[in-house]
């Protein structure tokens, strides 16, 4: 049931860790879902449920054992070598829990890296960096090194780096995991802004109901399988938050 406006389409995805003769562990079992263009989707589950594994499959950091993953029309499972690297560089924006900023580069240089890899001219690059810095209100941090930034500021710089090259999807693996609640909220607001203003598709992986409540749709994952799904529809965020908590109550029984 692939719809043409899906930016991510996953069918029959399985991942088994361990070689055939070793002890094997099935981290993902028959995963099927889609993310529509411009959608803000959350994947929620307890620690060890397979969230990171799933994200790694989507972003080509690891290869699936079975199944199909199509991102923005590219069949990810069929790519090799440089194609994989180029795919990550162009189609995916990534935010990690531990920021993953290069501490030898200034914020500006960190943000510009995805464009530099594409060979963008320095004029265009400067413009793009300043635009995204405005959006994320980090213009005054550009000349600083990561060591001089707070956790929240680091994560905003990381977000800027993730979207500066206009990828087709922004993925976050527990991006608020290392932040205090104020910074976490700021970041989630920013992600919402990015999603709405730039129509950027966002896939957020989290175990935290508060983070999840910023999404339009949530897929619950447990033991490597997607169990249920919640839609925010027209509820406000706090109502949706309550609904998530209720769902978790039943989901975890």
């Amino acid at each position, binding site marked *: 049931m692939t719809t043409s406006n899906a930016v991510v389409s996953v069918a029959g995805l399985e991942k088994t860790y361990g070689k055939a003769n070793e002890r094997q562990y099935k981290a993902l079992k028959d995963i099927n879902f889609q993310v529509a263009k411009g959608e803000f989707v959350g994947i929620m589950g307890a620690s060890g449920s397979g969230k990171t594994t799933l994200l*790694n499959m989507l*972003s080509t*950091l*690891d*290869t699936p054992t079975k199944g199909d993953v199509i991102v923005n029309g590219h069949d990810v499972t069929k790519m090799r*070598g*440089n194609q*994989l*690297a*180029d*795919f*990550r*560089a*162009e189609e*995916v924006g*990534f935010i*990690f829990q531990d920021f*993953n*900023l*290069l*501490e*030898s*580069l*200034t914020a500006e*240089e960190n943000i*510009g*890296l*995805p*464009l*530099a*890899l594409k*060979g*963008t*001219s*320095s004029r265009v*690059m400067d413009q793009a960096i300043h635009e995204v810095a405005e959006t994320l209100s980090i213009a005054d941090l550009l000349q600083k*090194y*990561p*060591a001089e930034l707070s956790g929240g500021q680091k994560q905003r710089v990381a977000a800027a780096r993730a979207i500066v090259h206009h990828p087709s999807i922004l993925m976050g693996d527990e991006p608020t995991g290392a932040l205090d609640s104020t910074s976490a909220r700021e970041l989630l607001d920013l992600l919402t802004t990015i999603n709405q203003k730039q129509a950027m598709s966002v896939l957020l992986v989290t175990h935290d109901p508060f983070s999840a409540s910023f999404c339009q749709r949530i897929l619950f994952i447990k033991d490597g399988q997607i169990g249920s799904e919640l839609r925010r529809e027209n509820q406000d965020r706090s109502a949706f938050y309550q609904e998530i908590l209720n769902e978790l109550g039943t989901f975890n029984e």
Partner: protein
Amino acid sequence: MLGKLALAGIKNRRRDYLVLLAGLTMSAAIFYMFANLATNKAFIKANAVASSASLIFGFGAALLILITIVYIMYANSFLLSMRQHDYGLFMMLGAKRKRIGELVFLETLILGTVATAIGIALGLLMSKFLVGFLLDSLGLHLAHLASFYVPAIIATAVLYVGLFILASLFNLIHLTRTTVLKLLHSDEQANQTQVKPFRQAVAGVLGLVLLGIGYWALAAIKVLQTAAIPLALVTITLGTYLLFRATILMFIRSLRKTAWAKKHLNSFLLGQLNFRVHNYTRMLTIVSLLFAMALGAITVGSGYHRQLPMMAGNFGAYTIAVHDKTAQEQRLIDCLDIRHQATYTQKRQGKMVYYNAAELTKHPFEQLKMTTGDNVKTSYVTESIKKFQKTGPTDMDFLGLATNSQRMLTPKIVSASQFAKQSGKTTTVTTVRVKSLQRDTPTIKKLAKLERQRFSQPAEMTIGSYQSYEMMTGFFGGLEFMGYFLGIAFLAMLASCLMFKILSGAPGDQRRYRMLYKMGVRYQLMRSGIAKEIGILFLIPGIMGIIDVLFGLQMFKPLMQSPMSPYLGIGSTFAIFLGLYAIYYLITLVLYWRIVLPKTAVK
């Protein structure tokens, strides 16, 4: 339990430990070989003028000990960089600092002792085969060279184990004093140093001035005498350091502002260098000096080797003198490319030797004239018989034509009629001066050998420039051998210093390259980025070292009279040296790639 954990940590990094162990082993082996040569009294006595030999070897030993200390320092920091994260973790989990300290101490000491033991064994083997090979290929024959020599073993063991005890203590103090957090995140700290343009400029200018003084001191060694070397050593070291500090960082920072920096991984490369160069400055200074010493030692050594025959003309008026030449000797002489040849009849009586004035008029005896001063020019002149009758008897070369086992006979030139009446043992002597000793060496060697066989007492022989040349070869041979030996040893150690320093940074880079990998940087790009970064770190001391050598060779100018020159034919020496240096670069690069580049799947 903790011990087991520590062992597991070592097992995980087997390859890095192997590199470290191999490096230390090589260093100990080299040191043993040198100590064996330097302390072996029988060997030294048999081979060169004793006092100058012990001076040369003493100087060499001091340099070698110096570089060994530096080397172990860097090897140790590499070891520490591998281990501190593990030990930080153990401490965080509640291990006692005292226990950790013990472990670190033991680990360092065991590694060091094992390396020393294997190194000495390897050194024994290398002394047996390699030293012989090196000597052979230089055409030198050094007598009494034993490979097994107890004092050398003791010297090596004492020095190395001593240094490792110091290193162990240093590690113990370092690990027990540093906070756990710092240990855990040691490779994530970016020490961004402030650039103060004015200070930088002053440092840069001061550096240049100091370098200028140093280079001048080397060139002016005739004026400054022995003060030149320490003066140059201090000023060049300081100058290089200041210059590096001032310029490299400024250069990198200005590059970072250009459009070039915004292409591909260039910004990352510059960021890495900027991040590193500051704490590499001291290292690069030391390495460039060692580089210069190594290259200098080889250059001077091979310079003497290649150029000594050119000097041979200055050693005497004739290349060789043959007494009562045989048919076989005549055949050999016919093979030579002769410039001047003369045969004189001698009558020996008691302490006197008589010459026929008529003969000397017909074939005047050539005398060697050398101009004094910087540019020595040699010429061969003859004098009228009247004049020669006065000067001849004091001319060393002429005196040398007739000797017995006790002394040189006193020559007397008499008229033909008197000569005919003169009683005594009649002999003839043929002097030969060849165009090029270099070309005719094999033939002359045979002639000299025949002469030696015929006249059992070497003292009964004359001393031509060939014999002087042979003696000089013996002496300079030692110098030259030292040059090659120290040069290669220095190169091996300095390149490993650089290697260890760079590899020490690898654990931190592992994370960085993993990030780049996740961001979609192609392997090829990461690989070439690393090649550039390490290449630059190798290149900087290389260039500085070559400049140092080019100026430093000035020092040897007074020792090498023209037409010899310390700069003659250095191209090939440089090429060989740079080739070896490049091999070290490649080894470092491959190791770095292996450590740093992410495997395809995330952990």
